[in-house]
């Protein structure tokens, strides 16, 4: 039971989305009844020990969330993340998306030479960029400047950015994007 509790905690923690009880049972190799017991036990523990976690158990799904009584602090976290002034790294990523969007994350990475996951997420949360499904890759996304941000910049179309055509078509950028990633 203790081992199973630990496993369920880990899985729900990482998932984010609600997970079906049947799926939990399958990957932890146990019965659904056993999973139900574990979920109840965890819920009770979190409440009794006033932990920061909370289990939302709805029909045949379970999801981990933060404890409702900590809502105000969570709100503060969100605000403090979003109100940060834009770092150089964010500005770089934003300018790449502005001039080269819609663009994939691997392409942004190869232009900057570093991994952009964190930066992209922050820009998304702040509503400065938006992502759309990539028609050429069902698992990937394309990133582009958000309409709100464009408006804020005083533009109605991204093409009105200064020297848009020229900078967008720059050969150096093209060459680095086409450059095959080195195997390491």
């Amino acid at each position: 039971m203790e081992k199973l509790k630990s496993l369920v905690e880990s899985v729900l923690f990482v998932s984010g989305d609600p997970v079906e009880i049947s799926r939990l049972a399958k990957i932890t190799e146990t019965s659904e009844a056993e999973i139900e017991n574990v979920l109840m036990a965890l819920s009770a523990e979190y409440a009794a020990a006033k932990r920061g976690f909370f289990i939302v158990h709805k029909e045949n799904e379970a999801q981990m969330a933060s404890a409702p009584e900590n809502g105000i602090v969570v709100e503060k976290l969100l605000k403090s993340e979003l109100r940060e002034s834009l770092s150089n790294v964010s500005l770089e990523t934003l300018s790449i998306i502005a001039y080269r969007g819609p663009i994939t994350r691997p392409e942004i990475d190869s232009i900057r030479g570093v991994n952009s996951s964190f930066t992209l997420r922050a820009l998304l949360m702040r509503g400065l960029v938006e992502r759309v499904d990539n028609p050429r890759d069902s698992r990937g996304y394309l990133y582009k400047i958000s309409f709100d941000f464009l408006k804020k910049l005083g533009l109605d179309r991204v093409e009105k950015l200064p020297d848009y055509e020229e900078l967008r078509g720059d050969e150096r950028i093209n060459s680095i994007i086409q450059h095959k990633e080195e195997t390491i």
Partner: protein
Amino acid sequence: MAYRIKLEQFEGPLDLLLALINERKMDVARVSLAAVADQYLEYVKKQENISLENLAHFLSVASRLILIKSRALLPLLEFSQEEEKEIKDLEWQLREFKRFKEVSRRIGNLFDSPRKIFSREGFWGMDGFFYPPENINVFDLKKTFLKIINEIPEVEKLEEEMVREIVTLEEKIDHLREALKGRMESSFSEIVSSANDKIEIIVSFLAMLELIKQRIIHVEQKESFKDIKLTMKNYPNPQNF
């Protein structure tokens, strides 16, 4: 055994050196460096696909090995302080490299083990809100993008450098042998006065040391010790370049 070494691809001079020493089951010490010097030079000479940049690294190690080797052949040959320090540095560098090479295998095992930690997608399921930065206008975006573009050529230049024409030690020895024919008195600085860069100087120096070494071995069998020493003195001190 030696044949196998030649077929392998090494990532750098230290890697090669370590492999040669390990093959003889020796520790990293001066005596082992002297023992593998010839094999090392042999490898560098035959290697045709070392990039120019890495060739410089291979050669700077080679020059130190030749010093160590010369001393092994000529016990009276004295090292300058600078040479002594360079050799000590090489010994130390090799030990460091060895430590990291060894620990990197353990890191690799950890990396491949299923004991992995996973985190959640950040702010999963939370709605952000539109919070545009103040004081950012379209020209900031343009300026930043331009800066990114302008930094790209450095990567390309580096690539070009890697594929630049490769100077091999062998090539240089032949060249020098020709140049030296009939003008044994010419000084090293004269020979390298036409060199284009540091790498070429190092290559010339190595090539010359190779020639010297061959002569030493030849002379040693016939003439007395004193003569050899005089011969050496006529050659430039490596400190000068």
